[in-house]
């Protein structure tokens, strides 16, 4: 049974293998595992408290009710899970480049980007996923949204497409390390933008609506795709374009990252 080297099955198999081993070894360092789980719980709970406090003072924000906002919150948590789980190694790129360790990724006969990202699976993302599902289910119920095939399919496609935007942004930001020193601050800045993703972009002024749609496209991380379920009457063309834009954007970020990696020449040693 000869597997095609560039084939999806080949890479899925390798990823699965690395992932299983990685999880096994993480479990064996139990203290580490427990502490990071607790940390993840606190971060999420703190996020909720802030959110709840805001709504103690404003029953509505620009016409959005508490439960609608909660829906967006849950949606954005789901959409941010893939970047957290599968692309977390972007955060280590700076260290790998400056220590010269990045070179080791260049010696394997497999795709460099894949190999680099496969090294880290951040299990904390799964906790976020669980919180997201819970929040979404609660608000879904409170809003009395129908559990139709249309809505479920819309949710799955919407979350998957929305997740591509944060992945792409983080790839772009981390790839800057290949050219400039101190790109970490850019990464942190971009990563902060994700917190705005959970608000409907209509609460921002026209200028920021434009920026968040076409410059730093966080509108696609929650707002546009969730309109499909939440406010059918407001669905915009951008809602339908979310998957297309997402795929194009991720692909561009991949090309940019690879271009950087290829011109990386290593530190002299």
């Amino acid at each position, binding site marked *: 049974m000869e597997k095609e*080297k560039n084939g999806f099955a080949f890479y899925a198999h390798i990823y699965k293998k690395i992932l299983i081993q990685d999880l096994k070894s993480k479990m064996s360092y139990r203290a580490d595992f427990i502490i990071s789980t607790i940390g993840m719980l606190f971060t999420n709970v703190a996020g909720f408290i802030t959110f709840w406090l805001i709504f103690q003072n404003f029953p509505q924000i620009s016409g959005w009710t508490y439960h609608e906002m909660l829906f967006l919150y849950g949606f954005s948590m789901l959409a941010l899970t893939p970047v957290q789980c599968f692309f977390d190694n972007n955060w280590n790129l700076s260290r790998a480049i400056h220590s010269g*360790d990045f*070179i080791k990724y260049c*010696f*394997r006969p*497999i795709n460099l980007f894949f190999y680099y990202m496969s090294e880290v699976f951040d299990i904390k993302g799964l906790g976020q996923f669980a919180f997201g599902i819970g929040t979404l289910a609660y608000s879904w119920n409170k809003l009395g949204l129908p559990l139709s095939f249309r809505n479920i399919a819309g949710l799955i496609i919407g979350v998957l497409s929305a997740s591509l935007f944060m992945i792409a942004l983080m790839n772009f930001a981390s790839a800057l390390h290949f050219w400039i020193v101190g790109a970490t601050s850019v990464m942190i800045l971009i990563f902060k933008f994700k917190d705005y993703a959970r608000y409907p972009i209509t609460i921002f002024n026209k200028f920021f609506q434009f920026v968040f749609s076409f410059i730093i496209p966080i509108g696609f991380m929650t707002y546009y795709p969730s309109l499909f379920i939440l406010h059918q009457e407001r669905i915009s063309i951008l809602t339908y374009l979310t998957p297309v834009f997402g795929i194009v954007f991720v692909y561009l970020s991949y090309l940019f990252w690879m271009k950087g990696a290829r011109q990386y*020449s290593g530190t002299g040693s």
Partner: protein
Amino acid sequence: MEPIIQMSHIDKTFKVLKRREGIKGSILDLFSREHTLLQAVNDVSLDIMPGEMVGYLGPNGAGKSTTIKMMTGVLEPTKGDILVNGRVPYENRTKNAQDIGVVFGQRTQLWWALPVIESFKILKDIYRIPDRVYKDNLEYYDELVGAGQLYHKAVREMSLGQRTLCDILAAFLHNPKVVFMDEPTIGLDVSMKSKIRTLVSNLNQSKGTTVILTTHDMGDVDALCKRIVIIDKGTVIYDNEIEHLRKYFGAYRTVKFKFKANRKDTKGMVAHEADEIRALLAYKFPEAETLQVTQEEQWVQLLINEEEARMMDVIHSVMEQKEIVDMNLQEISTEKVIQKIYEGGVL
């Protein structure tokens, strides 16, 4: 036979950014960048035949790693032609990677958190190593260096020596045609070095793998390589058999001992011990006429000509007679040899 590696007139020039000072400087850097050119490799031509073990030597910053990076396809030469296994490495990096193995000393390529055997299993899939080959190699490794004991240990819990050993084993796992080793023995103790020399020499012979090795320890190349290439400031200054160089690092070895103290007066004692050792060795190795025993502060130092007496035999004789608390085997640095070459005017 065709060479497996062909480099002709290879240059590599790095553009190094000139950074200006201070905040104002870094803002200026954003708009206009000034570069200086640094020529790391200068007109290097090399043909390496299949199965050869070549010692690639040179002082720090000579361009050794840069050359290896070009041969592995990580860097593109600025000028010149290069073929490895009949391919241009830079244009076929992933294809080239299938046929080569790489070891960078002190930089493991194994998965840090995983037991070695799990890393090997992942490599088996990545390189698509047939079951038979994989199994045979693991058995052979165990036979050669008792690798079986290490297989279930996580890489992060290993000593530098164990890690290097496993990295070398990993580099040979898919039976590559060429293995590049960049300073694999750096920071290792004498016994680990000797273990690694045995391993590499066996692997090269049994598999016919071509090996390119850089090191600062003349002992490594003496044990492994017939051919030596020396590069200095990016230019090849020597490419010939190691035999022609032997007079520059010769057969002399220096070894130092510290013995267990049984008297208070240490100063007089070391001198006394040196006398004892001198007498002992004169008796055991009568033909070793140039053997010198001297006192070096707290140490007793021996200068041995290996053509007269084998160093290991001498050490054994000393060990039988006295209790050793510390021992130090001085390596001959490649830098010293290169310096002598310049002085001796071989070039």
